[in-house]
């Protein structure tokens, strides 16, 4: 930068080259930044879920002699609830439940979206019609209400059951995308070539088509996990989450029914809220980074927007200068 200031502005070429180089560096930093932040936060959360319960000093379910609604201190790192439960222990146990439900539900959703989307797109014909109909129905049924109906119909819900419920209500959107991708891949020459070689349809889908969908599937899995974690928190908050187990959603639910907000016990409802938000954010960031790898257009989009702004500003400046020049000219004429 100082170079640019001290030296007289060179003719266009070197400056532009430097610009391009900076753009390139910018792109790299951009991608890495998103991915790094996302991965760091996610790793922290996973480590917390693994080791948190080990370092927690109290049983999350037993209040014992704990003080009630104690603010965070050296003994109770995140304070206690209105019943005297240690919030840190609950958060640690809850992390396991929430993340596990998220991953299981994400896996179920991806599997279902492959089964419906890829098969519909690849096979085509009547199979496609039927599967697309099912996908369409699942797509227009609003997810959370359906989840609520199913959850309230089943007594004694385990964490696994909640994960299954979230999985089977959250796959339709991904299936639509996979279907159209599979339709495009079906017409590739290499798929025709493997059919001509005599491969059976299952192998063609599994070995020739699916690997090329892998980046897309990664994104969808991450999105599925976000959906499930948020969904679980929502269900638990409504009292429809896994019964008998502790998750971030159940902590929020307890905080709500324990009047945490009214009594100013911020340490009770903030940690689970922030944790859910952080996990969602980290997965979304990783998802964005993956998206940018799949679709390079996304990577250059912010850059293009900035270039456009720059060009517009320059145009404005030029127009202003022109106007000023015209004015000056008129003035000079008038004086003459």
């Amino acid at each position, binding site marked *: 930068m100082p170079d640019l200031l001290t030296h007289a502005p060179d003719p266009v070429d070197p400056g532009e080259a430097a610009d391009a180089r900076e753009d390139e560096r910018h792109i790299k930093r951009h991608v890495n930044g998103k991915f790094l932040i996302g991965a760091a936060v996610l790793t922290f959360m996973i480590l917390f879920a693994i080791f948190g319960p080990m370092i927690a000093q109290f049983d999350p379910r037993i209040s014992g002699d704990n003080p009630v609604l104690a603010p965070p201190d050296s003994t109770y790192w995140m304070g206690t609830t209105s019943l005297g439960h240690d919030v840190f222990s609950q958060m640690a146990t809850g992390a396991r439940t929430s993340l596990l439900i998220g991953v299981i539900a994400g896996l179920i959703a991806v599997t279902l979206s492959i089964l419906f989307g890829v098969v519909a797109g690849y096979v085509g014909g009547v199979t496609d019609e039927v599967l697309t109909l099912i996908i369409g129905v699942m797509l227009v049924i609003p997810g959370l209400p359906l989840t609520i109906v199913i959850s309230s119909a089943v007594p004694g819900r385990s964490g696994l059951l909640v994960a299954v419920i979230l999985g089977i209500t959250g796959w339709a959107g991904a299936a639509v995308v996979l279907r159209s991708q599979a339709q495009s891949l079906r017409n590739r*020459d290499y798929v025709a070539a493997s059919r*001509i*070689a*005599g491969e059976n349809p299952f192998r063609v889908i599994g070995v020739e088509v699916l690997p090329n969908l892998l980046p897309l599937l990664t994104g969808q899995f991450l999105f599925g996990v976000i959906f499930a974690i948020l969904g679980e928190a929502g269900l638990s908050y409504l009292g429809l989450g896994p019964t008998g187990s502790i998750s971030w959603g159940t902590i929020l639910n307890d905080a709500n029914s324990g009047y945490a907000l009214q009594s100013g016990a911020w340490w009770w409802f903030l940690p689970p809220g922030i944790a859910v938000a952080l996990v969602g954010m980290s997965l979304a960031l990783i998802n964005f980074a993956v998206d940018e790898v799949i679709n390079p257009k996304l990577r250059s989009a912010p850059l293009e927007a900035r270039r456009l702004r720059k060009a517009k500003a320059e145009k404005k400046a030029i127009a202003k200068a022109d106007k000023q020049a015209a004015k000056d000219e008129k003035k000079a004429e008038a004086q003459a």
Partner: protein
Amino acid sequence: MATLNEQGTKANSGEGTLEFRNVVKEYRVRGAHKKLRAVNDVSFTLEPGKTIALVGESGSGKSTIAKTILQLERPTSGDVLIDGKSVPRRGRALKRYRKDVQMVFQDPFASLNPFHSIGHHLERPIRLHKAVGADQTVDERIAELLTRVNLEPVEEIAGRRPHELSGGQRQRVAIARALAPGSRFLIADEPVSMLDVSIRLGVLNLLARLQREENLGVLYITHDLATARHFSDEIMVMYRGDVVERGPSDEVILNPQHDYTKRLLAAAPDPDRLGQMRDEVRRAL
């Protein structure tokens, strides 16, 4: 109907050939009540060691014929026969047919799966059709195939992904893959049209050499009359689904009968008329 009656008598005479008999293929046009006739009553017979060139413009039905032969499309009427017998539609019998008839695609950048190594592309057809010689491993067979299409060093090439090869190298891999099952007939759908002009002749000569060595029957689909004449014994000219002219290569090229063939020949680049088109355009301006 007549073809059905003939089938019985012709069945014995077709040993060792791939016959395309009175094939009609119609596509339903979306939004219209008429049908598009992509292939109209086309017949020909591929024989071992012979090459037939199928020439025509885009949309003339060339690729539909290729797809029909390879059982990727079903003919509306008519029949594809191998060794005088109707080609099976499914199951193990169809797999045996696939061992005999293979294809080289037009675009070497699309016909190899970017996800798999070159070795994988050759290994699959070998394993599927158990096409290994006595006391030969699959890897040895892959090496043999790659050597035959002049891709060396073999180990290095086999481990590479398609994007690490040039267009010409990819097309050689595609040819090796088509030969891998030990096929007798080869459908080559414009095998050099996507390659650099400088390497086209190399790939064509490779195809010709392999054809001689294996006594392959080749259907060479192209819109380039020059290579068609260079490469094939017989030329069929297609225009809008019909075969409008057919005969020995030189006959068709030197003494064209149909208007469309004449137009095709006139459109081919000719060193004697260098610059003529430019002059025409300038005059029109």
